[in-house]
């Protein structure tokens, strides 16, 4: 008897049911984010009133720390998980709305410089991660996933590449764990290094956008430094994200030529499918703001709306990071990722400092 292919009957989930399923987690994100905002306002004032020396900790860090505390102590109960996973949605909506604070001229000027830096960063990072993976005798497809994750845009790039090159689930879990662990580390070290080196907001923002892998962590690392640095980090990170389709396509073609992945049919459709659509939304809002579709007050309102969306994102970054789960994934891919990230961070810092002297941004 021929094996029957059983296709499970997937019951469509009603929109109302889906909404109810995500609601507890979204409320948890909002509660943690808002608690972070209240802590920023009150802890500083309390310390000042009692003549304590206490650093001014921004809501971004409070929200992440509260999320980390919950995730790594009591854990995130099942009922909240679907809603917590929406933090990526809030991140992307926040980035689109942030477009209202960029005039098209700024984007063309900074985008041109960042495009050049991104091209150098992607080429250098892929070459170095491939070399390092071979030195550590990692599996070839795991090397590809780590290279794409650290060169382009973290988890999204790894997921997109996994599908395109038929990589194992285990390899992608390894890569995602390494990228997330290093992203969490970057979140706390980048602002300290930036302050230690007295980097300006622009230079730091561009560096964070170039070197921090995951979009949420890059946005948070920028916002932890300053508002202006946060804006720049988002712009540069979005430029990096826009490259995802080209890098994944190149790897898909390479692995297909090795007979280890499906051939890519329509390349234009492939590129469009992998292209991050929120980059287009960001550009559209920026064009509208440039041509004064929004008044000054409305731009302020959109910027605040973007901040609220990021507030939920930062709470999600903390809640999503579980150090025990990351530890389970093994040391070698993490070691390759860590060495690679340090080299990429130093390399991109050199690029930014050089570009600052050359272009004077």
């Amino acid at each position, binding site marked *: 008897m021929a094996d*029957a292919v059983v296709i499970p009957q997937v019951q469509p989930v009603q929109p109302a049911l889906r909404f109810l399923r995500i609601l507890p987690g979204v409320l948890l994100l909002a509660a943690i984010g808002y608690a972070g905002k209240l802590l920023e306002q009150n802890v500083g004032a309390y310390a000042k009133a009692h003549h304590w020396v206490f650093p001014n900790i921004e809501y971004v860090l409070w929200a992440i720390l509260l999320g980390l505390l919950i995730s790594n102590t009591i854990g995130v109960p099942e009922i909240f998980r679907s809603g917590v996973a929406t933090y990526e949605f809030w991140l992307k909506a926040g980035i689109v709305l942030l477009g209202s604070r960029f005039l098209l001229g700024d984007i063309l000027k900074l985008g041109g410089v960042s495009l050049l830096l991104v091209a150098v960063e992607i080429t250098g990072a892929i070459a170095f991660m491939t070399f390092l993976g071979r030195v550590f005798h990692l599996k070839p497809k795991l090397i590809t996933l780590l290279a794409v994750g650290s060169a382009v845009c973290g988890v999204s790039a790894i997921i997109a590449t996994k599908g395109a090159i038929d990589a194992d689930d285990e390899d992608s879990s390894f890569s995602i764990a390494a990228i997330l662990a290093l992203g969490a580390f970057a979140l706390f070290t980048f602002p300290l290094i930036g302050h230690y080196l007295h980097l300006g907001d622009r230079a730091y923002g561009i560096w964070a956008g170039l070197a921090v892998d995951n979009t949420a962590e890059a946005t948070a690392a920028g916002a932890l430094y300053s508002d202006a640095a946060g804006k720049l980090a988002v712009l540069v990170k979005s430029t990096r994200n826009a490259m995802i389709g080209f890098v994944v396509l190149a790897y898909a073609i390479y692995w297909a030529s090795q007979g280890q992945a499906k051939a890519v049919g329509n390349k234009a459709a492939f590129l469009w499918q992998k292209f991050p*659509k929120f980059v287009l939304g960001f550009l559209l*809002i920026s064009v509208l703001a440039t041509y004064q579709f929004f008044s000054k007050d409305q731009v302020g309102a*959109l910027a605040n709306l973007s901040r609220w969306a990021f507030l939920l994102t930062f709470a999600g970054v903390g809640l999503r990071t579980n150090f025990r789960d990351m530890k389970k994934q093994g040391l070698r891919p993490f070691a390759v990722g860590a060495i690679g990230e340090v080299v990429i961070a130093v390399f991109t810092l050199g690029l930014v400092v050089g570009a600052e002297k050359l272009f004077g941004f």
Partner: protein
Amino acid sequence: MSVPENAAAPVNKPWRLSLDSWAVVVALLAALLVRAGVFKHIPW
């Protein structure tokens, strides 16, 4: 033409927006509501 017994029938997936596209749609909608004056002031 006979269809192999183990061939799965093509499944017509319902057309769905990606998370990315939903984020763009929701953000643009919010921007239009602000533009139309529905939300006059968003506090921070």
